[in-house]
């Protein structure tokens, strides 16, 4: 699909022509790169999953068909095969796990799972109070708490995770039992508990090291994400606030409401239109915030790095001072300084009443401008380090060949810097898509959209700050989950596509 010119033609182009040509190739490649997610990545993943599933059932079949009674017994009582083959320690662990799991399911998990279908069943009950404060025929009812839908959802998901873990452990028990049988048949030595433990510091050492991170990842990242995804299919909102009310499954209704409107408690707010507007602004913001910082930071670094510039250390120190002040302090100060009329010191000094942060268009420029001010030192710092590492003889020989400063920049400096910083540029871009701090502290997302049905969204709101408002002010948890799922898809696709197409990844070994 890509129309490429021959090497000779390419070399014959002017500098600008080459740039345009490469840019064209890049953008022309984007749809294909996007499609490759579906044509390459997903089939690859599907094959892997299929392989795993096949392996799972194949192992079970083999163990059933070829296993002796000990192995077959393991299907019902975990650890039998190990016990019978004197691998007591293994046997105890599998058996203990099975007993604990059954106990958990009987005492707690089963009940939670049965509530999961409706996310709680018992509503709050009101019962008559008994008190000598009440006189005559006065009566009053007090509330007796029912199921808390949030906890039901939480324990339901936990129980499901345990079931998956149990199935895996059960499978592992059969596999290991069958392996022990095969070793025994081959008259080979079965590892003892002591030997098993030794491998933990040796052949299995990587697993020992990864336990901590894995547990952390599951508890703090994967579990909350699963919880959030489930929330997107519930009506957890301002009218269904647990623990007083139960919330329940509503299927794809929240997704429908995003595009067609009609969410309870939000009047005629048009989430779809607001989402579109904010998505556009979020992308524009991310592009500007990333590239202005990058280009300007690089220019500043190059200027400071130039031979003949005096007090280099002083300039760098001054710029780095802005890093030393916590970013939120600078941003809050800036937002105060840029306030309207007499309230903002900048307007007072200029003797004007410029609506820096309250005019819809100007506010967008202002946040980008302030972000440049906060962000340049970081790029400068990074680029300075790279610049100082470019071998001086490259420039020297270029100069002898008669290259001017501009040519040297485009031929030596830029490729070098770009090569090293491309991954960080991408992470910056994705970070800016979700740059909560700058927008929230500077403009708070304001000014309000003047459009009817904007549901309280502001002109400079990014999707992420809008999400915050939906959760914090409007308690639309279900809708907020839907939006965060869409945001996740967006950022994941952008990062995957751009990252895989960046030179740094393609030609990793090219680094000079």
């Amino acid at each position, binding site marked *: 699909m890509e129309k490429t010119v021959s090497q000779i033609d390419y070399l014959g182009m002017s500098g600008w022509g080459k740039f345009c040509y490469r840019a064209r190739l890049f953008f022309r490649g984007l749809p294909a790169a996007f499609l490759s997610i579906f044509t390459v990545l997903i089939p690859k993943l599907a094959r892997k999953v299929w392989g795993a599933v096949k392996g799972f059932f194949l192992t079970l079949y083999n163990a059933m068909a070829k296993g002796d009674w000990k192995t077959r017994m393991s299907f019902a009582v975990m650890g039998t095969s190990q016990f019978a083959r004197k691998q007591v320690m293994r046997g105890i662990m599998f058996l203990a796990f099975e007993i604990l*799991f059954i106990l958990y399911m009987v005492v707690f998990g089963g009940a939670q799972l049965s509530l999961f279908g409706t996310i709680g069943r018992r509503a709050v009950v009101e019962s008559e109070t008994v008190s000598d*404060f009440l006189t005559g025929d006065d009566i009053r009812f007090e509330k007796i708490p029912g199921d808390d839908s949030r906890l039901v959802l939480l324990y339901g998901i936990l129980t499901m995770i345990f079931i998956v873990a149990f199935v895996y452990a059960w499978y592992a028990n059969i596999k290991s039992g069958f392996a022990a049988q095969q070793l025994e048949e081959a008259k080979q030595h079965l590892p003892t508990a002591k030997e098993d433990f030794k491998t933990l510091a040796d052949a299995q050492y990587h697993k020992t090291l990864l336990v901590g991170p894995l547990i952390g990842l599951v508890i703090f990242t994967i579990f909350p994400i699963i919880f959030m995804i489930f929330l997107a299919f519930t009506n957890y909102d301002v009218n269904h606030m647990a623990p007083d009310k139960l919330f329940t499954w509503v299927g794809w209704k929240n997704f429908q409401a995003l595009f067609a409107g009609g969410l309870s408690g939000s009047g005629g707010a048009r989430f779809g239109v607001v989402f579109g507007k904010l998505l556009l602004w979020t992308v524009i913001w991310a592009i500007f915030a990333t590239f202005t910082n990058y280009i300007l930071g690089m220019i500043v670094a190059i200027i400071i790095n130039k031979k003949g510039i005096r007090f280099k250390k002083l300039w760098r120190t001054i710029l780095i001072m802005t890093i030393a002040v916590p970013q939120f302090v600078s941003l809050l100060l800036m937002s105060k300084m840029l306030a309207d009329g007499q309230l903002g010191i900048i307007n007072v000094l200029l003797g004007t009443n410029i609506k820096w942060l309250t005019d819809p268009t100007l506010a967008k420029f202002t946040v980008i401008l302030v972000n440049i001010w906060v962000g340049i030192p970081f790029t400068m710092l990074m680029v300075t380090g790279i610049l100082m590492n470019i071998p001086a003889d490259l420039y020297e020989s270029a100069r002898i060949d008669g290259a001017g400063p501009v040519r040297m920049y485009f031929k030596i400096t830029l490729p070098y810097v770009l090569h090293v910083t491309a991954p960080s540029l991408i992470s910056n871009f994705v970070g800016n898509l979700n740059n909560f701090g700058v927008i929230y502290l500077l403009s708070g997302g304001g000014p309000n959209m003047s459009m009817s049905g904007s549901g309280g969204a502001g002109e400079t709101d990014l999707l992420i700050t809008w999400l915050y408002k939906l959760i914090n002010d409007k308690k639309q948890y279900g809708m907020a989950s839907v939006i965060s799922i869409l945001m996740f898809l967006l950022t994941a696709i952008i990062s995957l596509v751009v990252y895989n197409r960046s030179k740094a990844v393609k030609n990793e070994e090219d680094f000079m």
Partner: protein
Amino acid sequence: MRKRFIALIACGALAATSLVGFAGCGGSGRKNANAGTQEDPYVLKVWGSAEQQEGLKQMVNKFTTEKQKDGKYFNISVEVCGEDKAKENLSTDAISGADIFSFANDQIADLWSYGALSPLTNKEVSKLADRMPESTVNFGYFNKQYYGYPFSADNGFFMYYDKSAVKPEHLDSLDDILSDLEAAGKKFLFEGETAWYTLSFAYGAGAEYEAIYEGADVKEVKTNLNKKPSGSQYSYGQLGGKMVADLVKNPAYQAGGNDAISAALTSKTFGAAISGTWEADTIKEGLGENYAATDLPNWKSSLDGKTYKWFSFAGGKLYGVNGYSQNLEAAHELAAFLVEDEQQMTRFTANGIVPSSKELANDPTVQSNIAVAAFLKQMDNSVVQRAMPQSYWDEVGAFATWLGTFSGTADELQARVDQMVTTLTTVTPVKPAA
């Protein structure tokens, strides 16, 4: 080996969570109410704002001592938690919230939907009605029941002004006030571009808005903002909206709330401000002997040339009793005590909080407070701010922002008002998926 290893981890995690799970389950059981004896006193927790802590503690002590004489023992703790924070805390967990908390009357629908409010008995309501105006008792009315003990009726706005800048005979007309201020080089401070204030002109002209609730849900929204008052060719929304658009373009106008008021006082440009009793101390100190306050002036529409009144919202603060309180009846007893006239007077003297009692409103000490007197005068021209869905604030806020830069024709304005009314009155029934 790997298998066993995984089994080990899973085992540990399982054991840990089962423990947490069982513990969590056990915690949800309810303790029984206390007996109120010396050995087992009623345990109550009260939330109040930071500035009222001292006063609240004194009142609570008084209550405890009084009740002890009747042989009822209380153990009451007071914690700092203002109205907004209280609502936030109760939204996520009403069960572990305080037994008694203060709230503003427009929060009632939200608090009700969190299950945080316990209703008053008929007897308790009639006791309140003996001492307070009907509209004030109605602050606590929601879904056919009364849910709070009003201790103040101070949530409304009126006009503060600089005596030296505004001529006394001009106080009735907004136009005259503005031209006086422009001549004096002073500013008229008003947050016209925010949801709370922007429709005040329209309400003055006769606009109405009502959200009808069924449970926590809005069943229907009624408003006449897009309709015309009799004898006018413009709608309420047009009249009120045009006034805001004209006002923000006036050279004497300055947008802003308390930050702007302080700044204007410091820079000596304060001419007049539309705000509530909470600004009284700041403005009094800033203006010195030129400090004055009165009700809102009338305004003349540039559309039909007629003069209309300018309305304030009217609301107040109440003590609510948590529906999940363990000592529900004891908590109601304390809440009723906290709104008695004597306690209201203490609150007025210490914090300048406008009392809700009929008798105290006519009290010479209360009337001698300039801001409070102006506020009470304004209350005759006000609309009660009832429970409103979030969509009201969102949508009217968007309209207010739109008005800030509006300079088109009356037809364009009407089109925007129509849009607003459509959004406001759209109601989605709450039905879970089949």
